[in-house]
């Protein structure tokens, strides 16, 4: 039997007990991909209904439960949307500390993904324990950096998992100056480690790839967009959050319970590489210089650069948090008073995995009439399918089934979707004709 006649079917059954449940069906017949379907079952779908009838004051704590890795993103996006509707102006202190809080989430999420999930792929390791055998110093460094992210989240959220610090109008409490200074010093001390992480990530040999895609990320007039900014695309789009529906659409596909997002009817990329592609000119000069030294040129059309993009954003987040905490003073009040009003609120921020968009219709009592939440993973879903198809064709379909499976996993992990937490999630059913 020649390879040309080989039929390969890769089927991944539903995964249970992971934060995002997913499945991948891949069928190759006569050297062609005849079926490629990624199915992810998004938890936020249920939360939209849970939120109906809830008072605005409950929303930050409720949406924090959508994700155990990126609760800050959900809290800050919801707060931003509702504060805009209610006409609440955050104090400069609250604005700055929201960004610091968010930096903590980027640091912990990105560091976990690099060291526990993605990096082992590129060292021929099956997991981080194997990676720790050959790169113990790098894994230790990653865990130290990740712990700093958790500390930042804990500082403003009272706990790093499902934090409870955010309220509409600001924060429930302001951390004491002594705790801020202590953590600020730790962040500063970690900056050389984060620079070393960037250099290390840039030296990891990555598979060559060159794909055309649209990058979508928030953009700010002066800063690297995290918790505030407009929505931009690499084809020149620049819109506010309330214009999202005019350009982006969610639709059901028959093979998935999750919604697929499209931008002008096409798949698109969100996440760290999309952000760097659009906003590398907003990086601090010191980081731009570092990237020039490593030879990392942007924009990039190779999704395997996502690991390096996360390392760059860790360095950025550490710098930003330390800078903003330098000027910390205790505020008169950590929150501004809120008076609810009826209307429609939209908001968006950059979750670790990419653009996160919320829309709330509120009644005059400040209760949710309906809610829509578009998470990054569903926005990337169509792009992942497109990438898998192109990557597999570039990789070569005549590789052994295990090699195909591993390559699919590597490609999917570039996007850090919730299902990437299942390190070996592909089971192969091979049919040969």
């Amino acid at each position, binding site marked *: 039997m020649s390879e040309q006649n080989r039929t390969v079917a890769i089927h991944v059954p539903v995964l249970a007990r992971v934060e995002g449940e997913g499945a991948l069906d891949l069928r190759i017949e006569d050297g062609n991909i005849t079926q490629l379907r990624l199915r992810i079952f998004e938890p936020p779908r249920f939360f939209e209904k849970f939120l109906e009838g809830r008072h605005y004051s409950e929303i930050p704590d409720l949406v924090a439960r959508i994700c155990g890795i990126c609760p800050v993103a959900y809290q800050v996006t919801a707060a931003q949307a509702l504060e805009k509707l209610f006409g609440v102006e955050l104090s400069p202190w609250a604005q700055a500390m929201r960004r610091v809080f968010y930096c903590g989430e980027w640091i912990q*999420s990105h560091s976990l993904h690099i060291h526990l999930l993605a990096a082992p792929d590129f060292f021929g390791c099956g997991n981080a324990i194997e990676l*720790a055998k050959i790169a113990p110093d790098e894994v230790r460094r990653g*865990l130290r950096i990740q712990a700093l992210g958790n500390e930042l989240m804990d500082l403003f959220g009272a706990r790093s998992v499902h934090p409870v610090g955010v309220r509409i109008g600001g924060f429930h409490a302001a951390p004491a100056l002594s705790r801020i200074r202590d953590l600020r010093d730790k962040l500063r001390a970690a900056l050389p480690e984060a620079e070393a992480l960037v250099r290390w990530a840039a030296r990891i040999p990555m598979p060559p790839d060159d794909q055309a895609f649209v990058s979508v990320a928030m953009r700010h007039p002066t800063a690297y967009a995290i918790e505030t900014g407009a929505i931009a695309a690499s084809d020149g789009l620049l819109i506010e959050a309330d214009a999202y529906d005019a350009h982006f659409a969610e639709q059901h596909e028959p093979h998935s319970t999750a919604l697929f997002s499209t931008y002008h009817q096409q798949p698109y990329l969100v996440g760290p590489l999309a952000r760097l592609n659009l906003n590398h000119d907003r990086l601090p000069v010191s980081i731009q210089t570092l990237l020039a030294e490593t030879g990392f040129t942007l924009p990039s059309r190779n999704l395997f650069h996502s690991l390096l993009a996360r390392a760059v954003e860790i360095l950025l987040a550490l710098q930003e948090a330390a800078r903003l905490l330098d000027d910390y003073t205790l505020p008169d009040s950590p929150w501004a008073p809120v008076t609810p009003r009826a209307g429609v609120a939209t908001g968006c921020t950059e979750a670790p995995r990419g653009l996160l968009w919320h829309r709330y219709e509120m009644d005059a009592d400040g209760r949710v009439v309906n809610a829509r939440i578009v998470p990054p993973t569903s926005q990337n879903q169509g792009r992942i399918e497109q990438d898998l198809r192109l990557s597999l064709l570039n990789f070569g379909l005549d590789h052994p089934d295990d090699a195909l499976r591993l390559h699919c996993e590597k490609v999917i992990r570039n996007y850090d979707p919730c299902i990437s*937490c299942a390190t070996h999630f592909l089971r192969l059913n091979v049919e040969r004709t």
Partner: protein
Amino acid sequence: MSTLRILGIGSPSGDDQAGWLTVDALLAAGVQSTVVDIQKLDRPGASLVGLLGDADRVILIDAMQSDGAVGRIRHFAVDDWPAYRHGLSSHGLGVLDALALARELGSLPSRIDLYGIEIGSANPGALADRRIEAAAQQLAQQIADDLTA
């Protein structure tokens, strides 16, 4: 001065509170004054690695499920940990995964005692079975006796 850390791991889900209940029983017995650090942890993930490296001795209590009777207490020596079975993940990095990672990184304390309490069901919001409460009391007493011996 040697440092001792006691970590009870669990979640607010029925019998999965076994580690927490053991810490509660230790605190009720006044053990805290004799140790440097005693904590209840909720699925600590990779952060567990950082809690192991800076102590001379760590006592770690977690729920376990095998084929034993509910409430059975097992002690695992450092060379006798149950086999690592699952893929690592950011969402679900388990205690054994973290211990294995710490071992590779040379971050284990010079002495570590891992206790497992056999559990039945772990339903969110449910109370722990009485056999779990009894096992937690028994294990706490055992640890307290060991510390004062």
